[in-house]
């Protein structure tokens, strides 16, 4: 079966973001970028399923600027067979992402779409569920285990109180949670091989998708700062502060 996996280029999760002084957004110039961590888990899952003989082809899809080709190359170095970039210059909000993924899924006819549960830049946590809705497919969001079994899959999802088990019909959309797998590191030979894999670039107009943002960002600000705390010398002082100063115990 064919798997479609989506990857987003985001600010590296270990970089401390800075809000632009004009309040228009966060600084992205000269900032280290990386593949969104949940998308790495998505790619890893597809590659493991291919290694297990369940998957015949992995198509990686990214939506964004021309630089997102780097992210697709990383996905291909991890094991994706080919890449598609839907090139968009500006902000792409989750509903637009879902419309693009649907358009590509209609064309590619994958049996499974694997997406990260959340991008760590806008923290929306929407695109996978929206894609499933537009395709009319089942969804397994926040997945920590998946076992494909013919035309269905047994999935385990992380929920607030523990875990949930479901059977879903295929085709379906799965979004990844942290415990699904641990993504591999890409090796130099695989990076070299990935350079030769096919990468197609298309525009959203060619797919008939309107990607104009629906939400208008009026301003972006720094969050309120916590006031500086104090170091205590020992447990006795800590307990005294909690009792007499903070009055929380």
């Amino acid at each position, binding site marked *: 079966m064919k798997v479609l996996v989506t990857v987003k280029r985001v600010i590296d999760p270990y970089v401390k*973001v800075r*809000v632009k002084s004009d309040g228009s957004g*966060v600084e992205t110039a000269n900032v280290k970028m990386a593949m969104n961590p*949940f998308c790495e888990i998505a790619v890893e899952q597809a590659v493991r399923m291919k290694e297990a003989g369940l998957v015949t082809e992995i198509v990686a899809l990214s939506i964004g600027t021309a630089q997102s080709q780097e992210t697709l190359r990383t996905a291909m170095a991890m094991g994706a067979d080919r890449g598609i970039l839907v090139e968009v210059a500006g902000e792409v909000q*989750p*509903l637009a992402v879902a419309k693009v993924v649907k358009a590509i899924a209609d064309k590619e006819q994958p049996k499974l779409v694997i997406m990260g*549960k*959340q991008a*760590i*830049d806008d*923290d*929306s946590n*929407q*695109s996978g*569920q*929206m*894609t*499933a*809705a537009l395709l009319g*497919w089942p*969804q*397994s*969001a*926040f997945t920590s285990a998946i076992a494909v079994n013919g035309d269905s899959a*047994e999935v385990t999802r*992380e*929920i*607030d*109180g*523990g*875990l*949930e*088990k*479901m*059977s*879903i*019909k295929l085709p*379906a959309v799965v979004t990844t949670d*942290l*415990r699904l797998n641990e993504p591999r590191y890409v090796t130099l030979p695989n990076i070299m091989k990935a350079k030769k894999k096919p990468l197609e670039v298309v525009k959203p107009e060619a797919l008939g998708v309107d990607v104009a943002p*629906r*939400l*208008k*960002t*009026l*301003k*972006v600000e*720094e*969050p309120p700062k*916590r006031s500086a*705390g*104090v*170091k*205590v010398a020992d*447990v006795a002082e*800590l307990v005294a502060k*909690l009792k007499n100063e*903070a009055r*929380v*115990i």
Partner: protein
Amino acid sequence: MAILVIAEHDGKQLKPGTTNTVTAAAKIGGDLTVLVAGSGCAEAAQAAAKIAGVGKVLLADAAQYAGSAAENLAALVQGIAGNYSHILAPATGYGKNFMPRLAALLDVQQISDISAVVSPDTFVRPIYAGNAMATVQSADKVKVITVRATGFDAAGEGGSAAVENLAAGPDTGLSKFNGQELSKSDRPELTAARIIVSGGRGMGSGENFKILEALADKLGAAVGASRAAVDSGFVPNDYQVGQTGKIVAPELYIAVGISGAIQHLAGMKDSKVIIAINKDPEAPIFAVANYWLVEDLFKAVPEFTASL
């Protein structure tokens, strides 16, 4: 304006985020209806009817809403969405699962995880793990919104809304619910606890969490963890506090052996009082702590417990 709040519940009681979501709805302003959908949830509907400010409760009680049921729940709400200007649910694992599906069915761009209401079409939401706050405006005909519970107080009791039955929507048959494995605990839920004791990689093992549990039990606290502790298998996933785990803001957050990665701070930095115990004097967690103690946690925590 007419606002629909979708309640999160366990069949009998409402989950903590629901009443905070009602407060967010009240800030938008309008007639307030609460939908309780589930399998065997009449008691939860009665609880929803008692929330102050609720005008009406809709009860959709059918087998197809057992478990998270994103496909069937989204289809149900799609059927009544035309009656409302705003549809809200808590930004918990429950709300995050089906709300985007609903939004896409309505061709609406959802507004995730709002922490403040500016006006009926403008909201504040954290982005980049809470390192920036975005003010966004929606022109969509229906506003589909998930609410960060820590941004709003819980609505009180005192209401006496009528409960109406809502006919079940279509059963999409797309997925089958096979049950839940819930962590059993006598301690308070993380998102509702007044005090949280959280452990990180520094705990070293799941076994060592016992010293945190002893402290938590003395304080009547919940026990949480950083992602590092969950990934290491010390504790189950539902303990995780952070950007992609649970967002908490208790009166007192006690971080033990937690270095303070950006992703963890995102889940707890709105706590009223934060204390940190770590043997590393350079731990980033100290930057958000009101009080911090540089000491070996295996010495400090038992001493803390004994002094209470």
